[in-house]
């Protein structure tokens, strides 16, 4: 591993200024994602870069999440707030809300999932193309919340895998936004693969 010109864990992109490939390989290393924003911007000035495909793809994926709002209850209203003008999730590249699971890669489960809804949730999750990510928004999706009741799923991880849990009842739009940013980091680090 040590002989390779780049870190094979996939988190470093090696960039070369001028000249043919292989020349000055140790100079101008740029780390992705986002260890230093300025250096990423430098990318535009370069002529070429080398990296692993995984790193580049993860970097792109994290910056362009297409959410599928599986909104059932109160949290869905806060999700709407996050999408609408005041909070504006478009600033972080996740504004392309798709209601078809086949066009989305991030499922935001916003609201209580009851036993009657559980097969629907599972089916829709299975219809999403891979890689797919899931955010459990709010107390109900996370753990059933304060509905410890005969008809409420006690956390959606009973049914589908979850990448991010957002606390709150309901979480504020900022809270949900933060979770999307955290998920983005996680994807770009290459931790979420499925």
């Amino acid at each position: 591993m040590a002989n390779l010109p780049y870190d094979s864990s996939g988190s470093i992109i090696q960039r070369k200024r001028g000249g043919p490939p292989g020349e000055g390989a140790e100079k101008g290393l740029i780390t992705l994602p986002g260890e230093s924003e300025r250096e990423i911007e430098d990318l535009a000035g370069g002529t070429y870069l080398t990296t692993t495909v995984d790193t580049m793809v993860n970097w792109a994926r994290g910056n362009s999440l297409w959410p599928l709002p599986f909104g059932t209850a109160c949290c869905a209203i806060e999700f709407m707030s996050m999408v609408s003008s005041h909070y504006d999730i478009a600033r972080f590249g996740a504004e392309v809300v798709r209601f078809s699971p086949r066009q989305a890669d991030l499922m935001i489960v916003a609201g209580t999932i009851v036993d009657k809804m559980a097969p629907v949730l599972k089916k829709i999750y299975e219809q999403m193309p891979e890689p797919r990510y899931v955010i459990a928004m709010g107390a109900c999706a996370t753990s059933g919340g304060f509905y410890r009741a005969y008809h409420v799923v006690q956390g959606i991880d009973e049914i589908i895998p979850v990448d991010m849990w957002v606390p709150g009842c309901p979480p504020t739009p900022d809270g949900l936004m933060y979770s999307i940013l955290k998920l983005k980091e996680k994807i770009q680090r290459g931790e979420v693969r499925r």
Partner: protein
Amino acid sequence: MSTLTKFSAIPYTGPAPTNRNPYVPAGAEIADARGEVIAAALQHPGMTPELGQDMPSFIVDKEQIVDVLRALKESEVLAFTMPLDLFAVDYPGRENGSRESGVGSRSNTSDLQSPNPDLRPPTADTRHPGRFDVIYQLYSLKNNERIRLKVRVADGESIETGTPVFKGLNWYEREVFDMYGVVFDGHPNLRRILTHEAFQGHALRKDYDPAQRWILTENDVAKIIPKIDPRFENVDTDYERVTLNLGPSHPATHGTLRIVVTLDGETIIGADQEIGYLHRCFEKMSETHTYQQVIPYTDRLNYCSAIINNVGYCMAVEKLLGIEVPARAQHVRLMLSEFMRIADHLVCIGTNLVDMGALTNFWYLFQPREEIYGLIEACCGARLLPSYTRIGGLAVDVPPDFLQKSQRLVDMMPKFINDVEKLVDRNKIFLDRVVGVAPISAEEAINYGFTGPCLRACGVPFDVRKATPYLGYETYDFDVPIAEGGDTYARFLVRMEEMRQSLRILQQAIERGLPEGPVIVDNPYVALPPKAKVYNEMESLIYHFKLIMHGIQPPVGETYFQVEGGNGELGFYVVSDGTKNPYRVRCRPPCFQIYSAFPDMIMGQTIPDAIAALGSLNIIAGELDH
């Protein structure tokens, strides 16, 4: 901070709560007298008056109930034309011949303080045995009065269905069947409504464990085949008949509604809905929590206008306790209720227009809504689901600049409303999609038990704020907007105008100013004493401890209180057995009956019409499924 004083005098000098005595409502004599008049007018042998209730109340023989319902509806003098509610209460103790109210049947929750058995309501008359009280509540638009009919049913017995008399009873009967197992003979479609197909048992029975779940797998899901409307049954067209499923996860169904339609070409010739995809067991949860702890659950009924639910529930319990809320708290409750009504309508109109492709309005309308949430956040720290009221008043006082903030909102709001009106009101595309779409006549709407904007869009000026004013609405000058036609456009117009009327109320409320004084009652059996006193006075510490541990204990009895919610009459029926937990909390969700009429409204129209109509009904799943 006051200095420590030992054994200071007890600050509270009012009467102690008498949870050992039965509840006597304020207007009981008037209700009893009115009950006599009604009984005399009907002359029906199956009705036995039940005295001492908050509205005229009768116990009706099981066999006679449909007869009585029909007589009440068709009587020219009484004209109880609107079915408001139908629900049940379970008294398992009664069947074994024990005392009437079934109060002693709760073992795990009432162990801290069990009520004195000698002072419970009188024992059951032998003429009406049975474990369940099935309760009908009707309303007369003509006389502006309500009536309550109770039918007692034993386990395994059945009642005749009331659907031929009132269409609005259809879903309620299914709900009672689902929750209690009471069978309604002759019901057109008696299947479970809120719980799923694999569910066993009846959840609201007292012997059902609140946490007992049943798992539904995909294989268990029953297929719904809608019944084809007789009008289209024999119509021969060139098209193939297709059954199409919409929802429950569909952008236009707002989350959790599911509609199965049969299409002939593009025409809807059969439709059936399935609800319960957000049945979060509000009523069962209320029974396992104390009166104060129920307040956050009420928030999540209609989550677009949470404070109105808080106010409705708290006022029902306050009615049971017989306490008067301080003027300052009433004023704040009224103002925030109106702000919430506006927020509710903003969400409704905004999302409805998005469904029709008018996205701009969504951005326009959500901006003032955020500002309203900013005001509520300033009051109590929460945005969407504030749980701001308490039984007896408010959780905390409003910020000092509450009125200035409100004035700013009231000033900025008309611009947004007018902008949206300008954008859509003369828009050809919009008008083509809403005018004459999904109409319902006034008679049908009343028969289904519509309330709120959807009823007013049919030209019926029924508004709880005018009919039975609360919080001092009678002292405000505002109009009840009505429209003609009962179509999607009429509902849109009514909602727009209602926002303006709410702003009028708010302007008057701001001009009157906030009354000085506390925001919660000075009654240590209801409201927690201030922290400074708890730390410094023995009595306050004891009151604090008692209230936290034993909760509020209203007198034994039952009451119903209604407020005007964002979608119509939001009522809470609370039964107390004298312990810290409610024996039964029934929420009358206005959406429930409105949505049950949906297939009738869209029959013969197209799918896009149905989508536009659904948005205009403002079905909130939390409220619909409780």
